[in-house]
């Protein structure tokens, strides 16, 4: 069967963009509800920023109670700031598809000619403002409150590590989001399950080398593991003594992870969407 016949003359049909322009439009459009929602419902500023700051402070005082060196307070502040990004991946990207399925939006995203990667990126970008704000507030206020001092050895490496970690992390988020196309209620529980174990294994509050080399390597599948390790080496006076591998090697690992996750995300999204269509999971509502 071929293309349908030409349209009737004299009737103005709507012009629709394709390709990269459609991709960008989709990202912006999907980010829009997040951004606007944050403006219209401002309670998140208290609950998503101030309260987590208090949680971070709790871990600071644990270290003070057991008389840890002051540098460890800095680890908690940095790790606490980075939890914002992990939570954004878990709740604003991956398991968000579960909510979208429940509300009926997922079906409409699927039948539209846009790319699911664009939808997911839009979700992430939309949540980025709140996420960045949370991270910055925890870093700045946490550092000020607890007297954390930094000694940045290389600003460009710091920027590079942060950027590549984010790319890899969001690539991982897209990859895991594809699995959520198949899930129902268990999606929420799996996301909930992935919080504390990742804080532990990725060394959010302590240098990961304390868990041993092999555990560190296994945990490096989560981009924040290497990202945090490199960040700590670059901003704390102890420097290289803190890291499980050198900053350069960790940057290389993060680059590989970025590539692998982004390519896998693209492939998995297509594959799992087809699987979900075959099994009729895209429109089911199984709470």
């Amino acid at each position: 069967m071929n293309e349908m016949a030409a349209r009737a003359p004299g009737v103005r049909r709507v012009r629709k963009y394709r390709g990269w322009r459609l991709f960008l439009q989709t990202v912006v459009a999907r980010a829009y509800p997040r951004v606007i929602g944050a403006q219209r419902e401002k309670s998140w500023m208290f609950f998503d920023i101030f309260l987590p700051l208090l949680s971070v402070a709790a871990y600071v005082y644990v270290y003070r109670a057991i008389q840890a060196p002051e540098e460890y307070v800095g680890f908690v502040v940095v790790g606490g700031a980075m939890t914002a990004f992990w939570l954004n991946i878990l709740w604003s990207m991956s398991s968000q598809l579960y909510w979208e399925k429940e509300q009926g939006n997922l079906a409409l995203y699927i039948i539209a000619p846009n790319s699911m990667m664009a939808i997911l990126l839009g979700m992430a970008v939309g949540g980025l403002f709140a996420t960045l704000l949370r991270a910055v507030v925890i870093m700045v206020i946490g550092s000020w409150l607890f007297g954390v001092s930094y000694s940045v050895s290389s600003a460009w490496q710091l920027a590079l590590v942060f950027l590549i970690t984010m790319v890899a992390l969001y690539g991982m988020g897209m990859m895991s989001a594809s699995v959520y196309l198949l899930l129902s209620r268990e999606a929420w529980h799996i996301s909930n399950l992935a919080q504390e174990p990742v804080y532990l294994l990725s060394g959010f509050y302590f240098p990961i080398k304390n868990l041993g080399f092999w555990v560190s390597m296994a945990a490096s599948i989560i981009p924040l593991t290497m990202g945090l390790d490199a960040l700590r080496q670059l901003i704390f006076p102890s420097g290289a003594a803190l890291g499980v591998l050198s900053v350069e090697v960790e940057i290389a690992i993060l680059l590989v992870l970025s590539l692998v996750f982004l390519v896998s995300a693209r492939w998995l999204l297509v594959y799992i969407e087809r699987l979900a269509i075959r099994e009729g999971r895209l429109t089911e509502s199984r709470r």
Partner: protein
Amino acid sequence: MISSLSKRLISDIRAFWRSFRLSAWLGWQIESNWADPFLFAIYSLIKPLAAVAILVVMYSIITQGDYTSPIFTYIFLGNAFYIYVGQVMTGISWAVIDDREHYKTLKYIYVAPLQIPTYLLGRGVARFLIATVSVTATLLVGVLFLHVQIDWGAVNWLLFLLALFLGGIMLAMMGLILASVLLLLAHHMWGLGEAVAGALYLFSGAIFPLEVLPPALRVIGYLMPITYWLELLRRSLVGQVAGAFPTLVNLSNGQILGILLALTIAFGLISRFTFKWCDHQARERGLIDVVTNY
């Protein structure tokens, strides 16, 4: 007059029991309806064990694994029982979002002859039971593998059970306050229960003695019923460890129990007034059946 009062009381008790029983049953149906029960079991164990492992690793790095120190038992027990705080507060407050936005049944609950606050409290029962499994597993791991110093022969079981019971009610009252607030907030705030529990971690003496906090913040800790609750649990299970920290050492068990009871009643009153006000606001603004999707 006495007869009519007692009739009224019986009627109120029946109404309370009906609302509570039904919502507890519903809460259990929802929580236990897992696609894979094995995954559910893993979830109930892995999450709390990972949370405690973070503290154990932090502790062992600094102290080179000195688990015999009383501070370790202090931290471990506080963290273990704190699981109840997150679970109960989340369980009760989450019911508002779940029923309003996902199941869209909150309006029908309102229309039915049920007591809404009691209904919300009942929804927290399932989470309390799940938390009990998690707390028990955490304690077992601590005792068996990490030398948490519990002398089972010396445990004050009466104090323990009393503290646990009163603590459950206290946490339920706090959960109800959050649930009331959520009547006025969008779907996005579904994590309020955990966020508040995380924040109170700082003030409740759960993982460090209150003395570590600056004096201005310590005052908040003294106003939190969770502080006294955890202290009672520690005293009942590991009296000698609790005594090693001077926070509440000048107060007897009876006094702490009395303070906990008074604060529970106070929070109960606060929750009552908060619910009334938020409920009124929600009805005024037509929020009972709103679906924000955001």
